[in-house]
């Protein structure tokens, strides 16, 4: 059994790959992120997560920068 404990994406270290569990944001942002490929179970690799500096992830072959606020709202496994 895999661990069902979810945590915010912002706590994931660079280099780790995680799975998206859900996004706790408004519908607009949720839908926008979904259209950019952030759908349930998608694999997210954190490329860079360092304070201060950009929070960069890689999803489906494309790199994205996220604000820290969003990274807190994205729950991953």
């Amino acid at each position, binding site marked *: 059994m895999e661990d069902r404990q979810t945590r915010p994406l912002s706590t994931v270290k660079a280099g780790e790959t995680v799975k998206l569990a*859900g996004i706790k*944001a408004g*519908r*607009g*942002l*949720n*839908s*926008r*992120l*979904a*259209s*950019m*490929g952030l*759908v*349930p*179970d*998608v694999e997210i690799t954190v490329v*860079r997560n*360092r304070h*201060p*500096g*950009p929070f*960069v992830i890689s*999803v*489906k*072959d*494309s*790199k*994205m*920068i*996220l*604000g820290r*606020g*969003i990274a807190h709202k994205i729950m991953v496994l």
Partner: protein
Amino acid sequence: MAEIMKKITVALAGNPNSGKTTIFNMLTGARQHVGNYPGVTVEKKEGLCKYAGFEMTVVDLPGTYSLTAYSIEELIARNFIIGEQPDVVVDIIDASNIERNLYLATQLIEMNVPLVLAFNMSDMAKQKGLLFDIEQLCELLEAMIVPTVGNKGKGRVKLLDAIVETAQRGKKERTHIIHYGKEIEEELEKVEKLLAREHELVEKYGSRWLAVKLLEQDSEVTAKVHRKEVLDAVTAGTEHLRTIFGDEPEIIMADRRYGFISGACQEAVKSTVESRHSRSDMIDAVVTNRILGLPIFLILMYLAFLLTFKIGEYPMGWLERFFDWAGTTIIAFWPAGSESWFKSLLVDGVIGGVGGVVVFLPNILLLFLAIAILEDSGYMARAAFIMDRIMHKIGLHGKSFIPMLIGFGCSIPAIMGTRILENRRNRFTTIMVIPLMSCGARLMIYALIIPAFFTEKWRGPMLWLIYLIGIVLAIICIKVLRLTVFRGETTPFVMELPPYRMPTLKSVCIHMWQRGWMFLKKAGTIILAISIILWVAMSYPKPSRQSLAGLSSEQARQTALAYSVIGRIGRTIEPALKPLGFDWKIGTALIGATAAKEVFVSQLGIVYAIGGADEKSHTLREKLQANYTPLTGFCIMLFCLISTPCVATVAMTKQETNSWGWALFQFFGLTTLAYVITLIVYQIGSFIAG
């Protein structure tokens, strides 16, 4: 013989960074027209392309990831496709990032438009080791697919052939549809059945698409449906799906679309090389480095600034000399010493006005050269991020930094440069405060006043203080605007980090040309019109011959200005200016300065009857020293810094916000602010000075 061309409309859709613009340029060359979509400030680009007996109007839709109702760009793209029924929609796909890019294609497939897919940047995909089974993909997606390399112009003919073929074939029923799974399909079916009675809507949108959008709780589509039984079914359906999946239906549906895409890709896309650290990653490691990132950004910005203004100085000088020459040539047609209103209109009004417009052109072209390079190379996305932490604190997007910096050179290119900002609130807020960035023309005023009133030791700090006041005021104004007129959440920062690419000469040139032309055509005409009006106000009415008799030419000019509309306004508003420590002479010069800030200096020269005044004029400085206190001097600078943007700025704001309302809001808002602040400073200052 000219054959009769068949006219068709082709719409280009695609993700941001998919190279849509390069395909647009490849198809239309320089025959493009840039405007706005009606009622909004989203840019609309159109171009013409003639091929194989077809005259194609190619429309570049805004770059989007999807076609929801959540953003204005997506709505525009969607409404264009539904409303204008283009004969062909070409979806530009970044072939090196195919899954994410095909998401938009699934939406177009659902709208059942005649679709062509351009697999752009196919060279990059090849480098990445991606192999496509195009035939199989064509079958699965039921659209023609053409590999292209937009920035190298490859695939043009094949793409045009595919467009023509698809246009001739027209709409057809699809056999494959995206299957959303049993539960969602059941709900879709229910809604579709009930929709059958909404004839008009179904006719226009298709029942499947309507049902999908209704279950996605799309606000725009929902508002169009009026039958209660449909809306009830939708509410029940979404409620039901929410309980089953524990998530919004639209998210599950997005997931299913991605599922459809991965299904297609699994069969038809082979990856031969394991992806490794690319060149982009290496560049990123340096330019977004914690320590190096900011300095690199600042150096690049400094270079952009130098390019815009230092290099721009040369062509500006040539243009100025050309207009001077044109003026003297025209004067030569009249006998020396004769006065003619027509001569004055031509030389001072028209040539002065046109010259005043055209001299900005080099700045605009060079700024957009710099912006095009920054954007096309992919650096702009990084720059936005680097500045975002700082700019976010004051309530703006990271990219706002660039136009604001350009504002220190000149507000005109700066306001035009806000086009790099996608969000309307960010863009308008930035436009409103740009005049507070003290521009080059205002430096001439400071250069006249500071040495007149302050000792050597204080001159540097004084100049620095003025610039600083502008910046601090801009930050305060942004805060206030964001809390009042432009209230709303700052859009959360999500942005794709496109791979670095070499900008191509062609696309950079087209970009520059478009902006330059747009400036001349749109803003130019307004600037010209207002300049002429100001010229009239400054020259008329003329005093009688007798009253000028016996005066020196300087005195005559002084009398004429005092007699003109502007001179009269200056006198009339003197009581209002008194509390600021200004007399009618300063008032007149200030009104004249709305034509262009540097005019303040020459106007002051005229009211003091000093010939050929410029910012280095000793006599004018002596006059100022004799008539005013250093406090008044400081207040003049303060007022010029904050108040009344010049007419060119007003015209530019009108053009870029698409409304006189905002332009006048800026004009009066800043002038009021200037009045209040100067009033406070002067009153407190005189109180302390006793």
